[in-house]
């Protein structure tokens, strides 16, 4: 299949590489052409612009940062994509932005699919991502073989925007769990108990989780080098809370976690790991007061 890919960052590059390795004809474009070198050396073709890519491909994938980035690319793709083609967006954006893009594309006979992923750069490299997608279910036949190159858990969540709603739920559950882990670490330390041991005990019981495993270990080691940089979790959480307001749904825990993420940003830790949430708690009651 002729597939285009825009957004060759930590997630996008290994994903595009998997598509290439599966035998698809891959066309790439990047704002900074150097970021495409790795894939061009492995046989990908270069497009002069997003529009040129749209003319040559039946499916154009994007994996960029926020709603505004996807919207600006869509504005260039929409006039060039042929009827029957698909804009497949892996970015995490606002559900409402995805619904609106899908509506605009539908007028041109083009399908927009929101397909955010979970699993981080490690999951992208190992092709073990969880992919949650929203759009017409009839598209599954065309998209499932591509998804199979990229991830292990593929779920059609529902109509347009449903993938982003699933991702919003994913972020709500995950970051709330990181905050709970940080609070447990703080409580243990304040009581003079070694959190590394607490974590080890908990991991064997009902509170065991992937977050406790990964982020708990980082907090115990005070290793705040990113995994996923915290500002991206902050950005995603702003969208979660906006959707709650749109739907008139109270998220009391979500709101509190959002506050702690705001505190993390205020401290200047946006480019570090989200396990820095531990340090936000420490600022509210500093260690020297223990």
């Amino acid at each position, binding site marked *: 299949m002729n597939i285009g890919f825009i957004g060759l960052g930590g997630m996008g590059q290994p994903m595009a590489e998997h598509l290439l390795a599966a035998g698809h004809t891959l066309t790439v474009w990047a704002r900074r052409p150097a970021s495409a070198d790795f894939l061009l050396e492995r046989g990908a073709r270069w497009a002069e612009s997003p529009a040129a890519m749209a003319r040559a491909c039946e499916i154009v994938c994007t994996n960029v940062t926020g709603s505004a980035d996807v919207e600006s690319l869509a504005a260039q793709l929409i006039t060039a994509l042929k009827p029957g083609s698909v804009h497949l967006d892996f970015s995490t954006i606002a559900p409402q932005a995805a619904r609106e893009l899908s509506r605009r594309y539908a007028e041109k006979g083009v399908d927009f699919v929101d397909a955010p992923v979970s699993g981080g750069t490690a999951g992208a490299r190992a092709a073990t991502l969880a992919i949650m997608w929203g759009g017409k279910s009839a598209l599954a036949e065309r998209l499932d073989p591509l998804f199979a190159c990229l991830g292990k858990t593929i779920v059609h969540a529902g109509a347009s925007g449903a993938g982003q709603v699933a991702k919003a739920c994913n972020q709500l559950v995950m970051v709330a769990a990181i905050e709970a882990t940080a609070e447990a670490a703080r409580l243990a330390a304040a009581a003079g108990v070694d959190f590394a041991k607490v974590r080890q005990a908990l991991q064997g019981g009902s509170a065991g989780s992937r977050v406790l495993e990964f982020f708990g270990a980082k907090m115990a080691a005070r290793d705040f080098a990113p995994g996923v940089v915290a500002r991206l979790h902050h950005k995603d959480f*702003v969208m979660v809370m906006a959707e709650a307001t749109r739907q008139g749904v109270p998220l009391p825990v979500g709101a509190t976690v959002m506050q702690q993420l*705001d505190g993390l940003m205020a401290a200047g830790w946006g480019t570090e790991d989200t396990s820095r949430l531990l340090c936000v708690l420490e600022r509210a009651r500093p260690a020297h007061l223990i």
Partner: protein
Amino acid sequence: MNIGFIGLGLMGRPLALHLARAGHALHLWARRPASLEPFKDVDARAHVSAAAVARHAEIIFVMVADAPDVRAVALEEDGIASGARPGLIVVDMSTINPNAAREIGAELAAKGIEFLDAPVSGGEIGAINAALTIMVGGKPEVFEKVKPLFETMGKSITLIGASGAGQVAKACNQILTGVGVAAVAEAFNFAAKSGVDPARVREALLGGFAYSKILENHGQRMLDRNFKPGFKAWMHQKDLRIVMEEAHRLGLMLPSAAATAQLFNAIVGSGMGEEDSVAALKLLERISAPEQ
């Protein structure tokens, strides 16, 4: 003076009438012709667009719902900017995001149009009685020109600072009123569930350090179970949304406002958005009672 007024709703209508009664010639534009009815007996001309209003006015007041509405009236097709004469002053009395106000102000300035953000507090009653609190952001010399007009609408008129500063003050106002209403509702629900009469509690507290206008006025409406607006809960939800958007943009912790914003989400989501903010009491009663 020739004055434009766009946005003739609950708040805008009485304010425009104050200006007419002070002897000014009004130039109006409204989406719904019915909004123009109350202006039959005063010196007021209806126009076909905001741009047409701008061709006749020296100062235009805008009082609409949210930032996209202000942007549409000011800058989009047939908006104020497309009909404006040099030196026109646009005064936005709506409550919108401070950053949006700064951006709209800058875009108008680039077209030679002056801009003040001038949100108000005091509700419909305050507007009818010309007793509003008006919080203004913008250039001092522009503020001085508009001040006599503000004085026909309000009692407490303050230039807070540069463009956007009026909206920052209004956001602070909404933190205090939103959290305040929630606190009074919680206190009354707590008293009632403890078997104590909230009316007696309110009476006692009014004499102490917990005295506030909200305890006095909103508290009384809660006791009367009078949930008629006043200030609609969905507007308070919107204003708290603006507060929280700014907090996220600035990386700023507002834990009490955050919790209150969730309470208002629940009020609006349960279908009480058209009622007064004091409906917070009904929500708290419902979620702290046994499930039927």
